[in-house]
């Protein structure tokens, strides 16, 4: 079940209060990739203030955010703008607003966590296999890092890969931690 497209959901996910924002635009002024955004960060906040969650969650801008936290750091009202965009991305995926290309970020993050759940630490090569199993090739553009580098001979030549990384001894414990954290209804 996707979560409600309501302001409450967004604020709860982000632990932030949208009405605190007074639209000064400092988030937009400092954003390193603002030129690529269809809606400026302050405009996204404004949409949320107006209750137009769907328009905000369907905005392409949320997928441009690099989570550098400049906006949050400089916000005069201490609104966690970056956190709100995080929440919007999550809702966007759940409600199917995101294009396959945009879904990559979150799908990658899920694969990443799944990998950790099973291994305790990141197993890079396995992560790649996992992508494929999760239908990652839907959009036929395998993530860049893997395309041009990770799998490339260069990394291997530079011995920048452990083919068999040391694994965690008590891997079951990690599984239990995940289970307990996910039991409380938060999205896995």
């Amino acid at each position, binding site marked *: 079940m996707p979560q409600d497209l309501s302001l409450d959901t967004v604020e709860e996910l982000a632990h932030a209060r949208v009405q605190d924002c*007074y*639209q*000064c*635009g*400092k*988030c*937009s*002024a*400092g*954003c390193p990739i*603002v*030129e690529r955004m269809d809606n*400026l960060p*302050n*405009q996204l906040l404004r949409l949320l203030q107006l209750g137009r969650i769907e328009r905000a969650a369907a905005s392409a801008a949320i997928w441009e955010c690099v989570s550098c936290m*400049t906006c949050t750091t*400089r*916000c*005069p*009202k*201490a609104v966690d703008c970056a956190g709100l965009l995080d929440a919007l991305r999550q809702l966007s995926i759940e409600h199917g607003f995101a294009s396959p290309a945009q879904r990559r970020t979150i799908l990658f993050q899920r694969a990443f966590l799944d990998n950790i759940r099973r291994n305790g630490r990141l197993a890079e090569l396995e992560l790649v296999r996992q992508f494929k199993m999760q239908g990652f090739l839907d959009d036929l553009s395998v993530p860049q890092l893997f395309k041009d580098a990770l799998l490339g001979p260069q990394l291997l030549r530079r011995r920048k890969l452990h083919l068999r990384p040391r694994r965690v001894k008590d891997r079951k414990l990690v599984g239990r931690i995940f289970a307990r954290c996910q039991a409380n209804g938060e999205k896995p």
Partner: protein
Amino acid sequence: MARIGVFTCWCGENIARNVDVQSVAEQAAQLPGVRCSQTHKYMCSDPGQKLIRDTIAAERLDGVVIASCSPHMHLKTFRKAAEHADLNPYLVEMANVREQCSWVHSQRSRATAKAVDLIRVAVAKVRHNRALEPIQVPVTRKVLVVGGGVAGIQAALDIADSGVPVVLVEREPSIGGKMAGLSETFPTLDCSQCILTPRMVEVAQHPNITLHTCSEVEQVEGYVGNFRVTIRKQARYIDVDKCTGCGQCWNACPSKKTPSEFDYGLGKRTAIYTPFPQAVPARPVIDRDACLRLTKGRCGICVKKCQADAIRFDDQDELVSEDIGAIIVATGYQLYEIGKPDGQGRVTGYGEYGYGRYPDVISSLQFERLVSASGPTGGEIRRPSDGAVPKTVVFISCVGSRDNAKGLSYCSKICCMVNAKHTMLYKHKVHDGQAHVFYMDIRAGGKNYDEFVRRAIEQDGAHYHRGRVSKITQEDGRLIVRGVDTLAGEPLTIAADLVVLAAAMRPATGVEDLAQKVNVGYDEFGFLCESHPKLRPVETNAAGVFVCGACHGPKDIPESVTQASAAAAKVLLMFSRDRLYREPEIAHVQESACAGCFACRRSCPYHAIDPAEIRDRQGQLVRRVARVNPGLCMGCGTCVALCVSKSVDLEGFSEEQVYAMVESLR
């Protein structure tokens, strides 16, 4: 008290329509302690009052209850009437059988019953009333004004002109305050110094004003009308009486590198100096941290140059005591520290704006000095780094203000007007220059204010962008300002030659200390609290202490001056009588029972309770108890409710009275 008269009023038909006045009077006559019960058509009329006076005399009444309208309407009237009949006015109470009975209850039988109850309550109270005398406090007709900025000057002159002596205390070497450093003032663009300096001179020459510069309030004792104030006069190292202010000394002083406070560091001054040419008093002062003689024991050129023999290197701080009747606090403001190094490599405040890092990022008060004809550039706008005339200037609003994350949530109120003024002054001096303003809202409420801002935009071509600036960096000698125009919905980067930050107004340093000395409350930012925001805007909760100017909240010059005159008027009103009369319905402590927990003291809104020491005959301290200062108590009774041993009581609403009132309803 057993000889109480009850006087029930018909109020024409107003009471009589719904209340059976005759029946009420008859029932009242039966109440314990009631001697007689009378009615009258209009009790507040002359014949009504005469009836009361005559009955008091004839029946030798020792208590009176008037059952008529609200005590807020006529309690004073009837108390005065009783006084004329030689009955202590505090032995008169009222039963409100009109507003709270006949006017709101139409069922005659129930309204009548209630009226009797209300009289019953009033009789119960009056039986336990005590004769009270108004508290008289003598008044010393002399005023202390703290702070010699425009507000302090205005207040001091208003009071002194009315013939009352004033002691004006100023921390800096000269009066004049922030206004003395301004170039021109909004919305008229008249020269700040031209209108202020004559007032400063007036202060210096006024026979009723004693001026202490380089001075601060050290201690305040006493209470309204009777303060004793100790003032610390810092060593000036100049014999002010001998000095002629000729200037030989500062022209010769070899220590020339101290940043000028008056120019906010944009210029330099000598160790012996006057802060600015029109300073009042027009006498120099020696900076003890910069003077070569005082720091290293050598030099002394000024002594050689001084023909008046006025240099005093052995000068010491001096304490001066003054008896004062009222205090006006006018300590003004300082600018928010835009970027303050925290000593661990970090900057608190606005690190992102590079203030202190890039010389061409300056504060609005620094810009005032750059435009001022008496400033370090002689009024030519030249930027600090290389002296070039800036062709693009960015002004940023709300630096510190309305920024919860940096600690100040309030609007500083004047910056919108300051920015508009600055863009105009800039354009008038640099015709081919372009001014940009980043703002969040334009707040220009005031006579001719909004028109002024529109002129800056429409006639002088300032570009206004609605948005905050996120970061300022420096590339190739220019300042790269990254902002946004939220109205256009576009990020905006401007390469500027000079950036001016309109920093927030904060109360001057040390105001909290002073506030504690005079028992005035202050808010989380240090602004002093007025007694009531609408009705007592210049009074404080400390009787006899008044506030005006920016120490009370951000304000501009006209407002500060208005408030200063208001404070002066309040003081003169207070001084219009030889003695102060205060309502005697105040708290008092039964010291033998007081356990000294001081819950009363904690809660008293007027700081009217002090610890007093009980000593035995040998002078040994037995214990400490609470004691009410009758000059300060306003009679709210919060202390009574808090006192667990009920050792404090409130005249007029004593425990005995209140319980008797409740009991009468049994």
